[in-house]
């Protein structure tokens, strides 16, 4: 990894003012081994039954989260609820396209979430650019920047599709396959390189959680 002038930039929090250094982590993320099978299975069940969505409407997709969290579809009965802070959330719903400016916030919010954390990507834009395939300001594949567990096709996916997507996510979690956090840690440098390639004014620490 190198900056624009070709000078190698170490992947760390160097260059932060001393006062801020304490606010950020000083080590890259690490992988977490699952607990003993029976314990992990129980935990996974609990994780799957208590999905807290980060209430960050990153794109159009947020529009269908409103019906989902209100009476008509009432996602609370499936153990899904919105949560205002990334610290307490376990599911990040990428609501469609992500502009570069938002991507920066997505990355930051994602990194602030506590593992295990899951990402649900809505609609075409997250898969291959969608309508904005030729836009100068939107990324095309979200999986280049953060690991994604479930994709839901549609533009916009209906609330029912979102619900079905969450059911699928639950299934994956219970099967112990939703290891996005570990994947992120494993390929951390790759993800960081991708992120820095599109986020031109990278002014945040590399380890920010």
């Amino acid at each position, binding site marked *: 990894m190198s900056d624009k002038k070709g000078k190698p930039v170490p992947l760390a929090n160097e260059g932060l003012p001393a006062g801020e250094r304490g606010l950020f982590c000083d080590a890259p993320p690490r992988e977490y081994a699952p607990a003993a099978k029976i314990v992990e299975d129980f935990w996974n069940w609990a994780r799957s039954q208590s999905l807290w969505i980060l209430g960050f409407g990153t794109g159009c997709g947020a529009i269908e989260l409103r019906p989902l969290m209100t009476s*008509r579809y009432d996602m609370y009965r499936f153990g899904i609820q919105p949560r205002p802070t990334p610290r307490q959330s376990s599911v990040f719903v990428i609501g469609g396209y992500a502009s570069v400016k938002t991507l920066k916030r997505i990355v930051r919010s994602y990194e602030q979430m506590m593992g295990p954390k899951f990402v649900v990507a809505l609609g075409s834009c997250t*898969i*291959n650019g*969608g309508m904005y395939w030729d836009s100068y300001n939107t990324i095309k594949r979200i999986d280049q920047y953060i690991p994604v*567990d479930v*994709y839901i096709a549609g533009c916009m996916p209906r609330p029912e599709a979102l*619900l079905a997507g969450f*059911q699928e996510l639950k299934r994956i979690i219970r099967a112990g396959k939703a290891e996005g956090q570990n994947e992120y840690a494993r390929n951390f440098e790759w993800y960081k390189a991708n992120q820095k390639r599109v986020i031109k004014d990278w002014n945040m620490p590399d380890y920010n959680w």
Partner: protein
Amino acid sequence: MDIKDIVAPFAVWKRAFEKPFTVRKPIDERPGAPRYRGFHINDADTCVGCGTCESICMNKAIDLVPVEGREPSAGDSGLRPRVDYGRCCWCALCVDVCPSGSLGMSNEYLWIDSDPDVFRYVPGVDAKPWDGAELGYRRAEGYRLLDMERVPMPETGHAEGVKSFLELVKGYSRDQAEREADRCVACGVCVASCPAHMDIPGYIKAVRDGDLETGLRLLYETNPFPEACGRICTRACESACAIGSGGDPVAIRWLKRYIADQVELADYGKSLPRAEPATGRKVAVVGAGPGGLAAAYYLALLGHKVTVFEKDEAAGGMLRYGIPEYRLPYPALDKDVDYIRSLGVEIRYGAAVGKDPALAKLRKDFDAVYLSTGLPAAYRLDVPGDDHPRVLDGVAILAAATRGEELGLGRRVAVVGGGNVAMDAARTALRHGCEVDIVYRRREVDMPADPEEIREAKAEGARLIERAIPVRVEDSGDGGARFVWNEAEMVQKEPGKRPVPEPIPGAVVTERYDSVIAAIGQGPDLAYLTEADGVEVRRMKPVTDRAGRTSVPTVFAGGDLVNEKKDAISAIADGHRAARAIDRLLGGKGD
């Protein structure tokens, strides 16, 4: 603030005693609306793979991909649209625009996967749960994004037309032409069907843009007979037209004619390429029909000196002698021929090769020889009495009409056959005041003639007698002939093949005619090919490869003489191919 402001809010509790708004099992209980724009469906058999959906898609969500077990054929590219749900926005413009109407949308909306690479599929080919869905978005009845109706061509009415040999079809005005050209979706499926593989989308675009010079240049790239082909081409392209899969095909032929009609011959030179510097090589072309002259044109463009030997007194071959003037007026044909001649092509009239000069001489005097002598010899009826003096030859009748000779057909005429020559003969006879019966072995739908021709022949008053197998011709004793045929029924002998007419025993009909015109096909006259020339002939045809090379290296052949399709455009394509092959033989690059 009054007390109501404190009490009224507790009215929320009313809701607690009512039924919740919640849908218990939304995924099961709420299917998409009957019109829901869900996942795509496609009737892969109706689809023609034109790619209009791809063109209209602003998301580049649709790719045209080859699918297993589907090969390109006339009017079907063999490709099928593959939708990328990483791009689609479900606007359904593709459904609205689809010319064949094969594309639709189901009301299914659930597709969830962890693998982002799976969201691509070929609707109707890759099996999906929503295949064949009844509900879902379809374009509104009667409303399409594309205009499915052809701009009507101004024509002389039938009652009026049958009275003279004036051209029936008047040609598009600028506005009409541009409107008609606007209907084209530029898919290019037609190009393969055109024997000459003309750049049809290209010249239609030129019409649309009003850029006729470009249009003419594109026409002449593959076809030096735009005036003629713009009128009488068998237009395989239009049968292949994607718009035709759900409506009237684009009037490609009329648009071609429009371009050629609009540009004055004097202006041709402005847009068309000039001949290359003379190479000093000489080529002889035998027969000044469309094929021969096409070869001459392209050879001349390449800088070769071309001499055309024509046995008749005017150039054009079957275009002139086989096609009545009301379909192809002679000035139009002359325009094409004159332009070819303007490139320095020399045409020697009245020069029947074989008699004078002999082919051997041509082979000696010229660096290459192109044989494009066509099919001048009409087939006989091949029934007893077909040598009766009132049994006439259709091609000869048409040629006589061209020469302005008296035809002497009498009052009642039977035309035997179902091809274009039969129709032309019948309509020519009608214009000479005859009553015409067209007698054909099979059904109307089986007729090889252009449906439009059949329709017009009927409209002009010709009576169509279907399923009539000629039995014999008898002399009627009063200067006419009695034509006897056996009524037939169509029998499906082998599954998958077209049905065959079988005579119904005893159903014999006899009619008296003044003339019986046989128009059941023509054969070649290969008398000029001597053993010494060494050109291998098999089944009455010189053996050639696709480029027209015969067994003799410097002798090429093409057109109806060797071509199965037996139409002008194929002859032109042969001529063009042969010209390139000859050029290569003479040391050129062949393009």
